[in-house]
């Protein structure tokens, strides 16, 4: 029963609230071959388009998880429902992660087809970078109750990676392009912690309102 409700809610969410985000994420991935070379790249060069572009899918898909309830009229309706709001948010987050993984996987396979030296490591690295940047947006949107602040934090973090580069240490999301993979485990940890903290923070905020 609960599962059936969840599936219906997921379908409705995807259709009414997130289809445009999914399409936008697909557009980002489709634009990569126009902006970067993807043919015959070695392992280091192949990481560059993946690490630079995939974080955009994270920002587009993970940051707006709480967006529908930005409208207080919708929030009032959601509050009156029996189904747990956090469960719905978790399901949205999982759907965002699934789309992100599918897009990353498809693009890595496409690069393989184009003769680039990509492996499962590239898939993991790119997906973790996307999740890390996305989780910054997700967490900030959750605690500030403002999706725009979420986008702002995620974009600032992304740009900081450009400016400060490896000075960011374990927070550096483009590390694979410079030949290092060790940052990815920390980024994965950050993504998981921030996602969990975002959901918990949201629960507190919702109860306070």
């Amino acid at each position, binding site marked *: 029963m609960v599962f059936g409700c969840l599936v219906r809610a997921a379908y409705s969410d995807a*259709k*009414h609230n997130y*289809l*445009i985000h999914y399409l*936008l994420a697909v557009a980002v991935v489709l634009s990569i071959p*126009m*902006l*970067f*070379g993807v*043919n*015959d*790249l*070695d*392992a*280091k*060069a192949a990481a*560059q*388009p993946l690490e*630079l572009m995939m974080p955009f899918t994270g920002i587009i898909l993970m940051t*707006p998880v709480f*967006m529908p309830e*930005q*409208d*207080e*009229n919708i929030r009032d309706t959601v509050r009156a429902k029996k189904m747990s709001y956090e469960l719905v948010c978790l399901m949205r987050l999982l759907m965002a992660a699934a789309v992100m993984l599918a897009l990353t996987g498809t693009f890595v396979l496409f690069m393989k087809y184009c*003769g*680039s*030296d990509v492996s499962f490591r590239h898939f993991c690295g790119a997906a973790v970078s996307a999740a890390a940047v996305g989780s910054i947006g997700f967490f900030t949107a959750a605690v*500030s109750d*403002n*999706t*725009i*602040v979420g*986008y*702002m*934090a995620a*974009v*600032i973090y992304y*740009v900081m990676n450009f*400016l*400060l580069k490896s000075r960011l240490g374990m927070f550096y999301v483009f590390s694979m392009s410079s030949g290092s993979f060790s940052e990815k485990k920390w980024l994965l940890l950050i993504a998981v912690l921030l996602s969990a903290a975002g959901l918990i923070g949201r629960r507190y905020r919702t109860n306070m309102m």
Partner: protein
Amino acid sequence: MLFLKECKKVIFSLTFWIYCLIVVLDFTSQYYPDCRKAASPPYDGYKLSEDHGRIMEGAVKSLAEGYLANRYICYPLGFYKAVKLNEKERGQIEECLEELTGLSAAEISALDESAEKYGVYDGLHEYTGYTIESIPLSDTLTYERFTELMGKVDDTLGGGSDFKPDDLVFHFSKETLTKEEALKEYADFTDKDRITGALARLFSDYAGITLGILPVFVAAALTAADRKRRMTELVYSRRISSFRLIFTRFAALTVTMFVPVLLTMAAALIQAVRIYGGSNISYAAMFTVPSFWLIPNIMEAAAAGMLLTELISGGAAILVQFVLWFIPLLKDSGMLWGNISRFTLICRHNSLFYREQFITHMGAFVFSRIFYILISLILVLLTVLVYELKRGGRFNGVRLFGESGILRRKA
């Protein structure tokens, strides 16, 4: 007073404080380290000679080398892209080369034998690279026709190549500065720029990057705040005209977001006085140049944020401004000075020297600043129009999907 109320709304928003934090961080992490020591003459600097003969010779030679290898390195977004052409496209390049050099197709192909060959390993494959010692230029070739053909070559390569007409000067007329030229650059810095003129350009270069994007978040949050707090209907029903309300909001956004920038300008001036002393520097330059340089950036991002948030959503506003900001920034990342055109949104001059280059582009710089001020005002007028339509109940914002979406309508 409405203006002060709107300023208060901006100041008490979280996005504004994040904006302030980033402006200060940008100043301390980017500008400050570059300027904390007194500058010395740029002995390792370079200049752009803009010698047409040199540019044509260099570009045609580079094109012929790429043609022989059928491998052209492009940087469409500032990042590496190796382009390999098919037979038809290769034929187009060959036609251009024939006109550029006056050689026949057979003579161009014969260059393969005389050129020096070397192996290039890109990590996966080995390619043959070519170095041509010299290549003739057609006697009838004019510089205008040359740039036209280079434009055609750049289009065939998909853009972002060294042959883009606007970038030819930068790629093919670079020369190392002589010691005398380096000393002259330093003399310009101390005498003509009176130090702060040059510091102001560097300050504006760094601050312009931040101010090209951050104001959109503050503007989008302010514009969306009414809807979020269920105040829309209340504001709609007030007597105030949409024109006055929107322009007051825009003015409040521009003024409040300029204040932290003004404070960092004052900090930069204090730092300049400490390093160079107060007698030889121009105090006004540290405020006039950055204000004229940066206010159009704040205005454009704020206006775009207001219009698109009112028209579609805050997310759409951020996306559009991000694309407008990020792509040119990456594309021009190799040319940090001497590259200002009439429609450049983020003007760059990442050096304390090369004053002459900046003065050469002064017309384009002034044009671009006035152009973006006018564009901002047009965007704000459009916001007034959209707001007025929404206020009258004739429009409810563009929705792509959902009940009133333009892509799907329920019966």
